[in-house]
């Protein structure tokens, strides 16, 4: 028995973890208990050094000192303040009126607003609840298909998970030892491709099943000119003018400007010009712009300003993600104060929710640190590596298995648990297989979105259920009876969007270029170039080729962030050796 145990400690420990978690007590403490239990067994059997547990408080001090994780409370707080500021409602109202009279318009409005909310904050619940309360009744009023209406709302709210700044990307960056900024840059394009896929799906539906997404009657628009025209021409002209200005500005910049900086700055120029024009128009009452144009401009300013304040500063390298989060939180606070939407009670609530969320998330991390300490001690990472590298198909086989694993685990675990328990196990293996970790993190983040959309535990569906009508009611505007939304309709509506998310995972695997890898590719490209140059003249000088190797090593070892100690020793050949080294490093840090 003991011989079997010592020989198979890692698989036994992993199996026990599942039992401990399914037992149903708090995840954080179950993880910790599993780690402690096997740690002491290991020490008792002489498999682990008796000093193993000495590293525990040091690792916990390391978690306390981790600057990256500070972004979690900041973005949470920002989201909580923002959800009460009325920004989401104004956006839904205005964009809904703008697009409503075209077929599928309300659904497009929900997707666009969902993406915009996602880019300002990372809280799924707030988006889904706002859209469920504001847009769903309108969609039902005008006869949208209930499954489609609830599916599009849940999916658009879930975009907050992948479009930066999202919490899951922060945690992923921390666990994979990459910088949050790189992770955000990488997730930018996939986030918008996913948004485009949702729009494409609605477009498809509007051709195949036009009755599912009817156009609203023109009188559903309450923003209009005095003569009754919607004032769209003015809006169109304003849009064309500001886009043209932005493009002109972009062209005038030197070619050397990095693309992301170019996009951010030109967008600011275009939007700023539109805002100035609308502002002048309003104060001087020239009547140059229609009401709709003015309204759209003013309603878009707060979110775009916040996006610039947070993402713009991060992408331009002005602020770290943590600082960006803090400034975004202050910006949201200023906005809510300016609109008189915030009082002491609300402040207390936002602070309390932030505190409790930070606490439970950080305790899961503490628990998983205890677990991984013992798991590393019993050579667990090596076992996982053998298991996953022996899969047929190399990289692709690994990716498929890992994605299937995450997809199915996402039925039971939420993304915090997935990122803290599963990522530390598979991250090092991915690294060893030569997979770019930023790309890998974004891929898994897209996959984990499905955890919000799986019936019956998906959070987005759960939040939508809590605000969707559970009884038949009479609509106040049309005085017609409206049937309730059944839970089955919500579940069924999620399926097409889960499929789209899976397609997105496939797209990222098929076209890795979708995920931009700004931060890491720099030194690697240099090495490649140097290598090419060297090959050309390699015959004359072999010493230079020898120089290349350390350079390559340095490039591949370039660390993203000062990740906690356990991220550092992930790539080591011998886990035990790595573990001992990490212990020694911890000792250096010791007070």
């Amino acid at each position, binding site marked *: 028995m003991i011989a079997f145990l010592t020989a198979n400690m890692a698989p036994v420990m992993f199996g026990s973890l599942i039992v401990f978690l*399914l*037992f*149903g*007590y*708090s995840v*954080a*403490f*179950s993880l*910790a*208990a599993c780690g*402690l239990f096997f740690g002491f067994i290991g020490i008792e059997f002489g498999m682990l050094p008796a000093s193993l*547990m*000495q590293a525990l*408080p*040091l690792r*916990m*001090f390391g978690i*306390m*000192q*981790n*600057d990256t*994780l*500070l972004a979690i409370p*900041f973005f949470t*707080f920002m989201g909580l303040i923002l959800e*009460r500021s009325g920004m989401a*409602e104004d956006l839904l*109202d205005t964009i809904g009126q703008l697009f409503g009279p075209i077929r599928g318009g309300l659904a497009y409005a929900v997707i666009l607003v969902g993406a915009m909310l996602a880019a300002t904050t990372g809280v799924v*619940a*707030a988006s889904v*609840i706002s859209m469920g*309360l504001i847009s769903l009744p309108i969609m039902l009023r005008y006869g949208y298909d209930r499954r489609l209406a609830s599916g599009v709302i849940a999916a658009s709210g879930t975009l907050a998970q992948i479009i930066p700044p999202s919490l899951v990307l922060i945690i992923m960056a921390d666990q994979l030892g990459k910088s949050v900024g790189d992770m955000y840059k990488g997730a930018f394009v996939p986030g918008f491709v996913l948004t485009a896929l949702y729009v494409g799906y609605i477009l498809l539906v509007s051709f195949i099943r036009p009755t599912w997404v009817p156009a609203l009657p023109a009188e559903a628009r*309450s923003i209009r000119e005095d003569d009754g025209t919607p004032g769209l021409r003015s809006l169109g002209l304003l849009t064309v003018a500001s886009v043209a200005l932005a493009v002109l500005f972009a062209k005038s910049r030197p070619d050397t400007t990095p693309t992301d900086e170019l996009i951010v700055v030109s967008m600011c120029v275009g939007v700023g010009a539109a805002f100035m024009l609308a502002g002048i128009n309003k104060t001087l009452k020239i009547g140059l712009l229609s009401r709709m144009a003015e309204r759209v401009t003013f309603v878009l300013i707060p979110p775009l300003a916040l996006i610039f304040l947070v993402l713009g500063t991060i992408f331009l390298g*002005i*602020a770290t993600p943590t*600082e960006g989060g*803090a400034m975004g*939180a*202050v910006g949201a*606070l200023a906005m809510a104060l300016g609109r008189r939407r915030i009082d002491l009670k609300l402040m207390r609530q936002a*602070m*309390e929710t*932030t*505190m*409790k969320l*930070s*606490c*439970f998330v950080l*305790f899961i991390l503490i628990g998983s640190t*205890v677990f991984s300490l013992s798991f590393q001690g019993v050579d667990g990472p090596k076992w996982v590596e053998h298991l996953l590298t022996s899969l047929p198909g190399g990289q692709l086989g690994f990716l498929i298995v890992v994605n299937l694993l995450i997809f199915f685990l996402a039925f*039971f*675990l939420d993304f*915090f*648990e997935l990122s803290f328990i599963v990522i530390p196990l598979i991250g090092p293996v991915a690294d060893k297989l030569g997979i770019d970790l930023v790309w890998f993190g974004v891929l898994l983040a897209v996959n984990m979105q499905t955890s919000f959309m799986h019936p019956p535990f998906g959070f987005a569906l759960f*939040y939508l259920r*809590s605000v969707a009508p559970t009884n038949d009611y009479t609509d*106040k*505007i049309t005085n017609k009876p409206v049937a309730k939304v059944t839970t089955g309709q919500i579940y069924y509506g999620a399926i097409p969007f889960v499929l789209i998310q899976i397609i997105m995972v496939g797209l990222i695997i098929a076209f890795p270029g979708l995920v931009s890898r700004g931060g890491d590719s720099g030194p690697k490209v240099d090495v490649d170039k140097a290598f090419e140059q060297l090959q050309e003249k390699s015959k004359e000088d072999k010493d230079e080729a020898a120089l290349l190797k350390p350079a390559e090593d340095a490039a591949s070892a370039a660390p993203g962030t000062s990740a906690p100690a356990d991220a550092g020793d992930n790539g080591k050949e011998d886990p035990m050796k790595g573990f001992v080294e990490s212990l020694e490093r911890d000792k250096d840090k*010791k*007070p």
Partner: protein
Amino acid sequence: MSTLLKFSALIDRLNRRIGHSVRWLVLVAVLVSALNAAVRKAFNVSSNGFLEIQWYLFAAVFLLASGYTLLNQEHVKIDVIAGRFSKRTQIWIDIVGICVFLLPFVVVVIELSMPLVIKAYTSNEMSSNAGGLIRWPVFALLPLGFVFLGLQGLSELIKRLAFLKGLVPDPTQKVQGKTAEEELAEFLLQKEVVARDAALLSGSKTAGAKK
């Protein structure tokens, strides 16, 4: 049992008070960090002391609030299986969880971290960064937070045992009744949806009148 229940109520009060005070540190951390960033950009000066106070504050938030979070049943569980059991079985799972998982963990962490805290205190260890802060107060947060967590664990244990004896109402009900999401939904319903419907109603009436 009644003495124990009094003890439990005392702990609940203590942790509630701690939670209600500590939550303000979230706001302080946000303001300090935003100010740090702004000052760093505007005047190109930064103070290591102010940078370090950020994570001191965050550590204080999540460690000191751990008992309060436990009181509010906010440490997430996986109840795929446990959720199907009867209330009494779930209470028993909690009791075993507290005794076998939570309390030993708390004891181990306090025992292991105390020597380090004492050492940092006696040696007056400072941050290795220039202008950094003294270290022992932040190290001391770890055992302190776990003391509050352990105490709350005891309180939860007492409440569950008392429930099994039929002495108290179900302790696993969320203390405050409403979740943050429910609060938001209520808030939106009150302020927004009504106002918007009213506006739309009057809007459609005037539009109709024009026709």
